[in-house]
């Protein structure tokens, strides 16, 4: 923790993340206007006092839409990681712990999943399930667990040969206890790191999906969708895609810096 606190970039990232979470949670209170509120008299306006970031094609307040967009992004980031962890960790742990034939089968499955181009696979799943927030969780979750599963497997493989595990086994610890109490807690570091990097990846995937129109259905705002709709107007109405792009960029940076910090802080080699 101390090392993490000393890392200024990581701390800055952390602060941004906390702020984003607050914005996402209190979107209803923070947004000056509801995100569906249109004003057909003031379409595509640049930033003014009433509309600090301007209005979109339907005369909706861009700032309010971005605030609600933060909610979607954070939900996707956390929700998808929850699925990723709950699929990836057990599979990786089982594969590493059991070894033998079970390991071979599970690793092959992981390899096959790994061989698919990630985004294409997500798009495929989305087109089967249809657009929507829940489906994005599922699509990203279903495709994102392989990385974490591999890392957990590697950790478990190494840990299960350790003396303290042998000792626990010798003392009569069962399968669940061994894995749950002794092995996994020691494998936590790579999981935490993978999750901190997985969140921005999920956010970015959602943005990409919404950008190409298979993500979140309108009128729910999402940053990717806003960029996607705004980019064709960049020469006429620059603000439509510039502001949400900045939001995506800042979020990505914040998570990446924070993730880097966490990794460094937990890396025993850097002690």
């Amino acid at each position, binding site marked *: 923790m101390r090392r993490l606190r000393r890392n200024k970039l990581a701390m800055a990232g952390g602060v941004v993340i906390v702020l984003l979470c607050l914005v996402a949670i209190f979107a209803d209170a923070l947004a000056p206007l509801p995100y*569906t509120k*249109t004003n*057909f008299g003031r*379409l595509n306006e640049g930033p003014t006092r009433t509309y600090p970031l301007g209005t979109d*094609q*339907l*005369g*909706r307040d861009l700032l309010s839409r971005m605030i609600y967009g933060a909610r979607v992004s954070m939900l996707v980031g956390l929700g998808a990681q929850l699925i990723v962890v709950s699929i990836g960790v057990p599979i990786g742990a089982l594969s590493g712990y059991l070894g033998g034939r079970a390991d071979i089968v599970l690793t092959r499955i992981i390899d096959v999943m790994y061989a698919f181009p990630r985004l294409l696979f997500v798009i495929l799943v989305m*087109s089967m399930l*249809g*657009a929507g927030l829940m489906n994005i969780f599922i699509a990203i979750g279903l495709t994102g667990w392989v990385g974490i599963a591999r890392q957990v497997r590697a950790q478990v493989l190494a840990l299960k040969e350790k003396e303290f595990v042998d000792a626990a086994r010798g003392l009569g610890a069962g399968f669940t206890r061994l894995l749950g109490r002794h092995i996994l807690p020691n494998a936590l570091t790579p999981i935490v790191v993978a999750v901190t990097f997985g969140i921005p990846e999920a956010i970015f995937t959602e943005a990409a999906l919404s950008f190409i*129109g298979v993500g979140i*259905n*309108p*009128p*729910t705002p999402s940053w990717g969708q806003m960029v996607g*709709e705004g980019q*064709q*107007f*960049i*020469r*006429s109405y620059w603000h439509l895609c510039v502001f949400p792009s900045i939001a995506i960029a800042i979020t990505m940076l914040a998570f990446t810096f924070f993730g880097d910090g966490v990794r460094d802080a937990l890396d025993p080699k850097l002690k």
Partner: protein
Amino acid sequence: MSRPRITDAQMDLLAERLSAGGLGRRQFLQIAAGLAAMGAAGFNARPAAAAPKLAAGEKLAKDQHLRIGGGGWWQNDPSSHDFNKDLYCNGVPALWAGLMKFNADFQPVPNVAEKVSSNADGSMWTFTIRKDSKWSDGSPCTAKDFEWSWKRQMDPASKNPYSSYFYDIKGAEAFNKSKVTDASQVGVRAKDDWTLEVTLEGPRGYFPVLSAYLAALPAHRPSVEKHGDKWTEAGNLICNGPFTLESWEHNKVMVLRKNKHFIGAKDVTLDKVTIPIVPVQTGALPYENNELDMTSLQTGDLRRMREDPRMKGQVFRYPFPGTWYLTPQVTKPPFDNVKVRRAVAHAIDRENVVRVADGFAVPAHAMIPPGFPGAVDDKKIRDIQRFDPKAAMAQLKGTPFEGGKNWPKITLTMREEGYGSKPLAEAVQSVLLEHLNMKTELEVLEQRVFRAGLWKNDYQLVWIRWFMDYPDPHNEYFDTFYGKKTEGKRQAWVNDAFDKELEAGRDTRDTKKRLVNYAKAEEILQTDAGYIPVAWVARWAAAKPTVRGLEKNKLGENVVEGNIYFDMLPHLYIVEKA
């Protein structure tokens, strides 16, 4: 000679042939309308000359160079220019000249043929070819060339996906299906260099229509035999149209030169045409940077260009009659309740909704856009679905949704499409929320997926458009809303009184009476809220003030090159800057 009568059975065949040639029903109907409107001269009506008609004080520019493209035109590199072998090559039609061509009103007129005649029942056609018909290398382009080209297209070895296009020709089908291997059995014969005789399977009064389409263009035999698949590359290509292909840098640019051997060369003014291959996303940028003289416009750029005092005179609308509307599915709640449908109709704030389309839509109060036969503009019809939020809420009284409450989950479905269609749909969502407190989710589906569900009448609420195929109300009402259609039915809504009006309109020849039928049909349709008209389509292109010579159709609108009419470039010319 008068042209042989074309029976309904023959029209069905024509539709089949054209669809083999990749033309949809829509294009068939356009052509059919052109046929119906043809005068006494029949297929031999003289095409309008392409020569410039300069206004007083105007001078032709020395440099007759046109740069055209962008905004969706030529956004992909053509696979070749060999329309004779591959109709879908996406090449430049202006390199070629067929026996006939379509004019700006979609009527077939003679081109390389100077005269077309038939026997009494139309089972044998004779095309008399102009003696000055030449290839771009100066050699004569004769009836033999057309015979060879058409047979090349029918040859099973060429594996054309649209070879059935010519199945009207005697023996063509057997030859194409390898049942007959002797090409001389096929009913196309060059009687001499200037006479092409075509013997058909039976009376086909429409045959000249087929010969006017891209699929009937010729190919240059010596080049094909010498260069194989590479024969339409610049440098190899020998053609017979208004232009030749000077250079073609793949995925980059094509340059056309005037073909001095073209039959109509004296009327062609442009000397050089440059067609860059640019993705649609670049929008109007190349045009604004003065890299193009003419371009198609997309929503992002139109308003800015019209507000720009230097540009606004260059932007023009071109005919694209179409209507955006909503279909509430009468089999799905809550739209099974006519009161809900009427409430929705009253809640659509059309004036405001169209604003988001940035010029690509105008408010609509009926199916047929103004200026077209059958357009209605009386107050009675305007009032049926007028925007009136109070009336909208009042409709909900006594329904489970009174006061805009208890709405079930409602999905608004549309297809993926440009030209401002999604913002329009979102604006519709927004007015429904504002005036009826009706929350909707917008689902944007890929074309084919969308259509499959549409025809199954699967969707609850549909955002959809109809692009007019030919200027007759029959097209706007019958092909869209007729209840007894067995396939391609866009909605579950059926109304017998409505169908009766349509049938009466179809079976009457008296124009005035027909229009009364169709006005009545519109009234029934709107009263029952079988559909809710929202906006009429507008499309735009831009051309530099020095570009002149766009042909106008009967309605007086500039006609821009499309997939039936491809006679635009020979008509264009450049004038000196004023």
